[in-house]
C-alpha cells in the first residue's frame, strides 16, 4: 500500500502513548483496539465500564480534553494527542470529587455498574452548563442508562453539586 507524504501508515501492534488522568503511558496496541479496551485491558483502569459496546448505554463515558465521549466508539490510536480523564482521575487523593460525594449522599446508585459513566458524564455536563433545571439535567443525561432506575437520585446528586458551587 502506497501512502503519500509524511503521514505514517500504522499496521499491527504499535507503540503509542496516551495521557490518562495526567500521566503519560506507553502501550502496545493494534489500530483496532478501542479506547475503552485500551483503558481497561491494557492500562488496567477498569473503572470505565463496558456496557453495550454499541453507543447506547453510556457506561464507557470518559472525558477527552474535557468533553464527555463514549470510549467504546473510538480507537485508542486516535487519542495520542489528547488529555483523557477517567473515573479514576476525578478524586484528589482521598478527597472525592464533589459529584462522587453527592452520589453517595443522594444514594444515586444501586448495582453501581453504570455509576462511573454517570459520574463522568455528569462532570462533563456541568462543564457544558446544561444544568439550569432538573428537566435540563434529565435531557442532557439521556446518554446514560441505569437499569436499576436510580435516575431521580442521579439528577438530584448533580443538581446538589450545581447548587452548592
Amino acid at each position, binding site marked *: *500500500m502506497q*501512502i*503519500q*507524504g*509524511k*503521514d*505514517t*501508515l*500504522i*499496521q*499491527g501492534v504499535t507503540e503509542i502513548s496516551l495521557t490518562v488522568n495526567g500521566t503519560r503511558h506507553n502501550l502496545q496496541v*493494534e*489500530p*483496532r483496539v*478501542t479506547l475503552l479496551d485500551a483503558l481497561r485491558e491494557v492500562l488496567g483502569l477498569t473503572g470505565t465500564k463496558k456496557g453495550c*459496546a*454499541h*453507543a447506547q448505554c*453510556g457506561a464507557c*463515558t470518559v472525558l477527552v480534553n474535557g*468533553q*464527555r*465521549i*463514549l470510549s*467504546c*466508539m*473510538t*480507537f485508542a*490510536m*486516535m487519542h495520542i494527542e489528547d488529555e483523557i480523564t477517567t473515573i479514576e482521575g476525578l478524586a484528589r487523593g482521598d478527597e472525592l470529587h464533589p459529584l462522587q460525594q453527592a452520589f453517595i449522599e443522594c444514594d444515586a446508585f444501586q448495582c453501581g455498574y453504570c455509576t462511573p459513566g454517570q459520574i463522568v*458524564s455528569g462532570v*462533563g*455536563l456541568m462543564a*457544558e452548563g*446544561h444544568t439550569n433545571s432538573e428537566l435540563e439535567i434529565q435531557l*442532557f*443525561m*439521556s*446518554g*446514560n442508562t441505569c437499569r436499576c432506575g436510580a435516575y431521580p437520585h442521579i439528577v438530584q446528586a448533580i443538581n446538589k453539586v450545581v447548587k452548592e458551587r
Partner: protein
Amino acid sequence: MKPFAYIRPREVEGAVSAAQSNRSSFIAGGTGVVDLLQTTTEKHELLIDLNSLSLNSIEVTPNSIIIGALVRNSEIMAHAAIQEHCSAISEALSYSATPQIRNMATASGNLLQRTRCTYFRNPEFDCNKRVPGSGCPAIDGYNREHAILGGSSACIAVHPSDMAVAMVALDAKVHIQGVNSNRTIPVAELHCLPEDTPERETVLELGDLITAIEIPISPLGKGSRYFKMPMAGFSLASVALSWNVENNTIKDVRIGLGGVATKPWRSHAAEAVLRGAYLEETTFNSAAAAAVQNAVIQQYNSFKVELMQRTLVFALKTMAESETGG
C-alpha cells in the same frame, strides 16, 4: 473486529489520495464506523483518520454559514448564528442521539451515517445494501421502522439523520473535494434512492471527501423548526418546516420529512399545496395528504402514513399559531 491499517493525514490532499481503494474508509467521530466494524457490517483494510485536518470551524459570511466537515454535532447545535438563521438544524440536533454522541459525531458523518435497519446491521441476514443481490428480508419481515417513501423492491431502509432533513429543507449544500477537482452540490442531491442499487447510497466517488456544509442565510431559515416523533431516539416521523408568511398567506415554504423515507426527504408535493395558501387547517390537511400520496406501506409500518400526516399538521398548526399570536 478484523484488523486494519491506520493513517492520520495532515492535509486534505493526503486524505483524498489515501482513499483510492474501496477497502478504505474515512473515520472522524467514530460513532458510525466503529459500530459497523464491531458488527462486521463493514470491513475495511485501511482507516483514514481525518481528525488532524483543519475542517473544524464554523464560518459566518453575509450570505451563508459554512460548517467545516469535522465540526461536532454539539457545536453545530449550540452555535449562535445557526440558532438564529437556521434554527431547525439546531432543534433537529437537540433531539438527536445523546450528548456524548453529539460531542463525537461530525457534520459530514451525520449526513453519511448509515441506516439503522436491523437486517443491514446484522450480517447473519441477507441485505441488498450489504451484499448486492442477496435479497431484502425487511420487505417480508419486521418492517415497523422502514420507509414508506422512496423505497424500491430491493430496499426500504430509512435514512436515520434528523440534521440532514433540516438541511434539505433549508437548501444546504455540501462542498466536496475529489482527487482532481472540487464541486458543490445540494444536500438534497447527495443521497441516492435505493432503486436497483441500494449499495450505492450517495453520489460520492472513490476518494471524494466532504469538506464543508454550506447553509444559505435567508429569511426562510429564521424561525424554522423541527418536529419529531418520538422526540428521543430515531425518528418514526419528523418534519423540518420553514416558511415566510405575510397577512396569513404562505408566501414561500420548505418542508423536509424524516423517519419515513430512504433519503432525507424534501416534500415538494406538500410545499405546492401550501405555497400561496391561507393559514387554515383544511389546507394543512391537504398538504399532509399530498406528503404521503405516493406512500408504499409494508405489513408493520402502515401507521407511519397516519403518524406522518398528523406530525406535519401539528407542525403547521404550531407554526401558524406563533405567526398569528394565537
